[in-house]
């Protein structure tokens, strides 16, 4: 058997492991668009599990999970009837959660707490996110042992199933009887260290996964093969750093060479610590498996889409008001409250009618207070011309604006551009410290890909807006781009591209400001600002404080 199984086989193995021990492993995060590969995978799950598979919509209201009011019964009988929450009712099932990246933070928190207490279903989170920064809620994902991606797998890739339904009872019995860990715990812990995984749930879940895999393979002791698979399925997706980066890029550059089993046999039997052999065995497959891109966690990405949704975009419920629930949410509680005092009167009027009498006038609809969150997107020119002249001043100005943003509880994002492209060095975050750190280490030099930066800025602004927040774009540049969108040098093309990009920003109606960082204010930047419909101002000499005020004034307008 080869040390690096193909992606489908690995996925099918993961399904089998989950079927062996759903309680211990918590569940699974599956990154895949709906399609035949995903269907095939879910078929495998259905075939192997020893319990029913339920569905739990990702956008579920947290209230539905916990015990609550049974509205139908309550209205019929005229007294409060409570139901067991969905979570308790489904607790011995495997729950498919479609659109898990849209999961409400409260729902995720409840499920996570349920998993800790052992009375929640084992979820399979179907992550269908299209945007790279959308992800399933971390608090929940951290408690699930397995994460895998089926992106890019087609019908043709769906192959044999390493384990069938008949293997399951035996595997469960073996797990029950106990598996010898061997060196698994130490090895997995060391691998976690080289992946930069801080959470101790990682190694614990990986160990359980390795045990389930050993039980499936019918071995009494966890061996290298199980450790390798557990690393791929459980630890690699949690990695915040890639081990031995230089070796990695070498291996990743050409498409991973097809190794014959012999070669791999030879490699894996080389002497050396077990964890190094495991890491080496998976090094080539990491990029190929698409594991690293999908759900990389850690400091850099921790301000993902999840926490944003938790608070602002739903808004907090405020007073309900009378109204018709046409597409709006009926506040059942408030409606019943309104109806309650009238019951004796209404019953008298409608003799013989049982239960609660609710009339349309009682309807109350729920209102949400949705504080519109602002995100300041800084486009910072870090090119050579800038670096020479006024980089430090520009950084100073951004820092002042950051301090102001902190006071106003705004989020900030940083896009820096130099050389061939623009890089999002800080996704929207409220953590000022991070912004400052990233800014401080920002290197300068190289040509000016201004057009690319404007495109990136617009894309981010549109993303921010789609999430219900208000984007403000602040570009700090001298407006003298010299790299076109195609990455080729040439001022003429670059100027045309950046003007186009600027017009696109104006067309989106994004509020923008352009701070001219040239030594002497010039026409280039002014023209660009006009195309962008942005407020233009030259960077005042030695008075970064002034900038903050001006930007404030323009974005507030």
């Amino acid at each position, binding site marked *: 058997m080869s040390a690096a199984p193909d992606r489908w086989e690995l996925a099918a193995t993961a399904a089998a492991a989950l079927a062996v021990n759903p309680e211990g492993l918590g569940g699974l995060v599956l990154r895949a668009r709906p399609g035949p590969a995903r269907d095939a995978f879910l078929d495998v799950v259905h075939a192997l599990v020893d319990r029913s598979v339920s569905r739990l919509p990702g956008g579920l209201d*947290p209230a539905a999970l916990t015990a609550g*009011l049974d509205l139908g019964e*309550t209205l019929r009988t*005229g*007294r*409060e009837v409570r139901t067991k929450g969905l979570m308790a009712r489904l607790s011995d099932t495997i729950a498919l959660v479609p659109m898990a990246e849209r999961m*409400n*933070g*409260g*729902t995720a*928190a*409840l499920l996570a*707490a349920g998993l*800790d*207490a052992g009375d929640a279903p084992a979820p399979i989170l179907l992550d269908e996110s299209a945007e790279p920064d959308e992800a399933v809620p971390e*608090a929940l994902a*951290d408690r699930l042992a397995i994460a895998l991606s089926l992106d890019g797998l087609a019908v043709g890739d769906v192959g044999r199933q390493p384990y069938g339904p008949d293997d399951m009872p035996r595997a469960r019995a073996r797990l029950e009887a106990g598996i010898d860990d061997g060196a698994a*715990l*130490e090895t997995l*812990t*060391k691998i*976690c*260290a080289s992946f930069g995984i*801080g*959470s*101790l*749930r*990682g*190694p*614990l879940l990986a*160990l*359980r996964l390795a045990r389930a895999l050993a039980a499936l393979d019918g071995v009494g002791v966890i061996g290298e093969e199980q450790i390798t698979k557990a690393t791929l399925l459980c630890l690699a997706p949690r990695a915040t750093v890639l081990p031995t980066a230089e070796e990695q890029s070498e291996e990743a550059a050409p498409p991973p060479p097809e190794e014959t089993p012999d070669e791999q046999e030879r490699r894996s039997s080389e002497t050396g610590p077990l964890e190094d052999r495991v890491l080496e065995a998976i090094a080539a497959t990491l990029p190929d498996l698409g594991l690293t891109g999908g759900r990389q966690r850690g*400091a850099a990405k*921790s*301000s993902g889409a999840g*926490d944003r949704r*938790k*608070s602002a975009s739903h808004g*907090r419920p405020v007073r309900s008001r009378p109204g018709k629930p046409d597409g709006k949410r009926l506040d059942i*509680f408030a409606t*019943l*409250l309104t*109806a*309650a*005092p009238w*019951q*004796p009167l209404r019953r008298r009027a409608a003799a013989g009618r049982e239960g*609660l009498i609710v009339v349309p006038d009682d309807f109350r609809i729920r209102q949400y207070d949705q504080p519109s969150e602002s995100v300041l997107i800084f486009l910072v020119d870090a090119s050579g011309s800038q670096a020479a002249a006024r980089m430090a001043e520009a950084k100073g100005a951004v*820092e002042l604006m*950051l*301090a102001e943003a*902190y006071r106003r509880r705004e989020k900030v994002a940083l896009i820096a551009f130099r050389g061939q492209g623009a890089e999002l060095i800080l996704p929207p*975050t*409220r*953590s*000022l*410290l*991070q912004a*400052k*750190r990233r800014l401080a280490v920002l290197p300068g030099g190289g040509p000016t890909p201004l057009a690319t930066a404007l495109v990136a800025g617009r894309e981010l602004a549109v993303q921010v807006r789609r999430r219900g927040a208000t984007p403000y774009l602040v570009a700090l540049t001298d407006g003298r781009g010299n790299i076109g969108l195609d990455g080729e040098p040439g001022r003429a093309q670059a100027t045309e591209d950046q003007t186009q990009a600027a017009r696109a920003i104006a067309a989106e109606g994004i509020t923008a400001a352009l701070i001219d960082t040239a030594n002497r204010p010039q026409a280039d930047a002014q023209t660009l600002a006009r195309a962008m419909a942005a407020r233009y101002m030259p960077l005042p000499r030695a008075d970064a404080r002034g900038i903050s005020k001006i930007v404030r004034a323009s974005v507030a307008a």
Partner: protein
Amino acid sequence: MSKPFPFSAIVGQDEMKHALMVAAVDPSVGGVLVFGDRGTGKSTAVRALAALLPPISARPDCPYNSAAGDAVPGRDADAKEPRPVKIPTPVVDLPLGATEDRVVGTLDLERALATGEKRFEPGLLARANRGFLYIDEVNLLEDHLVDLLLDVAASGENVVEREGLSVRHPARFVLVGSGNPEEGELRPQLLDRFGLSVEIGSPSEIADRVEVIRRRDRFDRDPDGFLADWEEEEVTAQKRIVSARKALAKVETPDTAIEAAARLCQAIGSDGLRGELTLIRTARAAAALDRRRKVKVSDIARMAAPALRHRLRRDPLDETGSTARIARAVTEVLGV
């Protein structure tokens, strides 16, 4: 509900464990804020501590866990006291999505519908009375809720004025908030109102990490056996807290300690007097935990970091760690 992990079996994390014990000895120090990464044992520690504490004596089936003699809504002051029962120290989780209704309590709908009677239905604050209220990711909670929680935690009473109800009930609990600072910061005015704050990370030594997992795994597989192994240590720790609670009122705070606290707070420039007060209270609880009857300057030095590190006036962009600044001040001012 499964049994919680034994408190004594938690590897490392001494500062957090000590801060929680201090708060358990003297709940009036205010809440404990725990900042750290996921999976570092924050919620485990809170649950474990609650399980460690001796059961409390309460009226049977009381939604407020009230003790005999407490005035609670819906209870006639002249009514005969029922026979109290022993219940475990409550730990209530506040889920992120919790609404204000659920937290403070609201009108009892069943009563309102059936009889038209207005009656209060207690919320999570009532259930947490005399126990712990644990909030994961407190920095992501709506500000107005954090504010409300801190108010109740400080006053020990929940006052409800809503939906035509006017109710107050005891809500004395230790507030424990946890969060990951990378995901957003808590507003300074909220930070200041937590009594203690600790920063934790996962152990960096491989051997420690292996030990953590080994214990956790052993516990998951055989909870009863594991608990039996740790029974002795748990009993010792419980006694320590119980005797510290009893002794607390008798612990003396000499002027030298108060002065040391004042000088320290002045040196680091913490705003207001909350810093000093918390520092002295926590030092007293720490002394009681060490079975001493007198607060020493070393107690002040020990509690300086958890009691003050979140109160430093700070430039949001300043990177110098608060812990380092306090350590420096302790050395300079107290010479220890």
